[in-house]
């Protein structure tokens, strides 16, 4: 007997969209000086969600000045305990409004409600809750007897986990006594603007958090503004290089969380069913829009013939469609531009001779969609083995010995994440020790926690977010 899935859409009624959203500066919403707006779309159906102000240089000036004033007059003078209480309050309001934020995030980003509801939002609230508790304990963080905030932090975040990346940036910065000017991504600004409302609701002093929406130019103006003490960026390696260059010689502190091409190594003794689940969550979680995705599957040759059919069977059962449907596994690609990048790179694989497979999969007629895809017969020289696709596309390679697995896994300029699947503890530890990556998931994948430091080796960036380590980026 075959059970069919009935539609199970989450209600949108919990979200009240405004026609236009302005910048959040010094505790108030105000239009951009230049009067310009951009449109943010729902990537699942290309409908317009709202108009969002585009911040220019004058707006950046004003926001940085507000943040400086707030830092000097209020935030850095407040006791850590009181700062912490503000953050606890913010965490609680996020929990209270989490359904609204989850639905809005799915609408603006295209990711399944299952993920925003069960992963993004719980982690966002937990991140604020975690760092709230640090605010009055910084002397015990092993960063010196009297660690001091840096001042004003310029923060630029990507579109793949909009509110979670905001939490990763703002929570540790505020807990350590810094004030922030944050720019959310051009295509996913809405939850950051609701977060601004939450700051008002929490009576956070004006200027402690400032949110400037806009595109690349706004981001550039913010990271190059001479009035900040710290730049924190999550995004592409290409933009990360530019930012590192522009920060050189300014004395500003810098942390970067950039791209990845994570290897997911499956040894011949792995628990195959668990490994298949891990491979799927490693690459298809969040449509593969994950810098730490396990986008290169390295399978031991002796089990490849057994594992790949089982992987295909499992991928064929993934449900692609309406992000607000509670049964959806794979939502929409975030933007037309990203869809084009995924297509171009995946096509390059076909041109270079790799074998491409996707399950039978009806794509909705409007919106941005890409079917889950496996690429086999991939060699290390292929572009799809070297470049970050940032989409639901898995490149499959094989290996014979553990040494070869490690060599192939490390054969990349990136070093953000890696996975190891084996039932043998000593082999797991041996492999984890040799992988040059900041996060190693063994017999699991794509797990996150506020207490767990996250960040890359090599060209995946520097600095850590999360845990005690995450404080270091904001203390001098």
């Amino acid at each position, binding site marked *: 007997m075959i059970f069919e899935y009935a539609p199970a859409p989450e209600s949108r009624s919990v979200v009240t969209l405004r026609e236009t959203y302005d910048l959040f500066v010094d505790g108030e919403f105000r239009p951009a000086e230049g009067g310009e707006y951009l449109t943010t779309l729902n990537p699942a159906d290309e409908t317009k969600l709202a108009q969002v102000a585009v911040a220019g240089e004058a707006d950046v000036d004003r926001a940085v000045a507000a943040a400086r004033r707030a830092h000097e007059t209020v935030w850095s003078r407040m006791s850590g305990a009181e700062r912490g209480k503000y953050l606890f309050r913010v965490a609680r309001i996020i929990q209270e409004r989490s359904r609204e934020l989850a639905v809005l995030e799915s609408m603006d980003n295209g990711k399944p409600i299952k993920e925003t509801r069960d992963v993004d939002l719980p982690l966002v609230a*937990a991140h604020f809750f975690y760092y709230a508790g640090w605010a009055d304990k910084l002397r015990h963080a*092993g960063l*010196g007897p009297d660690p001091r905030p840096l001042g004003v932090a310029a923060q630029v975040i990507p579109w793949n986990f909009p509110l979670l990346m905001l939490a990763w940036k703002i929570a540790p910065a505020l807990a350590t006594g810094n004030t922030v000017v944050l720019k959310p991504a051009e295509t996913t600004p809405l939850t950051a603007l609701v977060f601004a409302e939450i700051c008002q609701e929490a009576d956070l002093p004006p200027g402690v958090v400032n949110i400037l929406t806009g595109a690349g130019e706004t981001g550039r103006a913010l990271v190059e503004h001479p009035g900040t003490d710290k730049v924190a960026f999550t995004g592409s*390696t290409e933009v*990360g*290089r*530019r*930012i*590192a*260059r522009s920060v*050189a*010689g300014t*004395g500003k502190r810098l942390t*970067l969380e*950039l791209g990845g091409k994570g290897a997911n190594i499956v040894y011949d003794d792995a628990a195959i069913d668990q490994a298949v689940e891990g491979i799927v969550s490693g690459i298809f979680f969040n449509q593969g829009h994950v810098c730490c995705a396990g986008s290169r599957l390295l399978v031991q040759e002796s089990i490849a013939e057994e594992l790949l059919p089982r992987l295909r069977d499992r991928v064929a059962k993934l449900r692609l469609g309406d992000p607000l449907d509670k049964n959806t596994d794979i939502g929409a690609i975030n933007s037309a531009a990203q869809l084009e990048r995924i297509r171009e790179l995946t096509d390059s694989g076909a041109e270079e001779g790799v074998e491409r497979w996707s399950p039978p999969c009806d794509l909705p007629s409007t919106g941005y969609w890409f079917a889950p895809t496996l690429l086999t017969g991939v060699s290390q020289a292929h572009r799809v083995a070297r470049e970050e696709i940032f989409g639901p596309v898995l490149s499959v390679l094989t290996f014979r010995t553990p040494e070869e697995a490690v060599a192939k896994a490390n054969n990349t*300029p990136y070093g953000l994440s890696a996975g190891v699947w084996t039932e043998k503890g000593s082999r*797991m530890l041996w492999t*984890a020790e040799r992988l040059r*990556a*900041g*996060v*190693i*998931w*063994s*017999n*699991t994948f794509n*797990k996150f*926690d506020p*207490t*767990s*430091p*996250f*960040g890359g*080796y*090599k*060209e*995946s*960036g*520097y600095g*850590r977010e999360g*845990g005690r*380590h995450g404080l*270091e980026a904001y203390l001098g």
Partner: protein
Amino acid sequence: MAERRKGNAGKNPGKGAAEPAPVPGRLAVRKTYKLYLGGAFPRSESGRSYPVTSAKGDHLANASLASRKDAREAVVAARKAFGGWSARTAYNRGQILYRVAEVLEGRREQFAAQAVAAQGLSREAASRVVSAAVDRWVYYAGWTDKVAQVLGGANPVSGPYYNHSAPEPTGVVAVFAPQDAPLLGLTSVVAPVIATGNTAVVVTSEHAPLAAVDLAEVLATSDLPGGVVNLLTGRAGELGPHLAAHADVNALDLTGAGDLATGFEETAATTLTRVVRPGPESGGGEDAWLDPDPGTSRMTPFLETKTVWHPIGV
């Protein structure tokens, strides 16, 4: 061909820096100062050298003037040594760093004489600097098997997972050693880099490079594997751009890079190379490095944090 600064050629050759007191009727044997690459002491492949003078301007010796190719060779040697050195147990690295202190202690007189000649320090000041340098090796010898416990640990994640973070060496570090602190300053920047399992390519003080070459002889006789520390005497301005741009250099310590630091930092951005900018010690001479407890601040920039997750279950 020797490159010589204006006015020095042929002037008052003087005696070598750490040359022992002359014995009547005996011609002293002088030392040729060379590079230290991959555990060997080659001359610069370029065949160049440059004169090194004392604080008073007297000629002390000729030092090798390292070239771009020497810098590349040094990076190759450091990369080759990295796997083995980083895989040594922390205890073993500590033993070797302590051995460096022991051997340096046995050569106190040589290094003190060098500091008097090259830097014009008083005997007392020179002795203080050498003592502090020996003690610095002891200090970092002790750190090798503590730093992971201080910086790493268990993370109490909200779920049935074992989760643990530990520091790991970042790789090959190009160190621009302080210009005005050729022994204690040099030791203070090199020891933390290798204590943590990194390997180093060091551009020594340009004007006072002889102590670095003497130190290389100590390193070479302390069971430190070849290639863990590679020393280039010469000009930061000539070698630096290549080291900063080198894709196989993982981090730069720009402490001694002076005005060149910003340019090197810009170049390093292309490969996301980690950068330590010149700090408060810069320009303060050997005395700026006397603090006996510099803490972890010179180790953490050259460490990556690796976090490992594993499910807990039966």
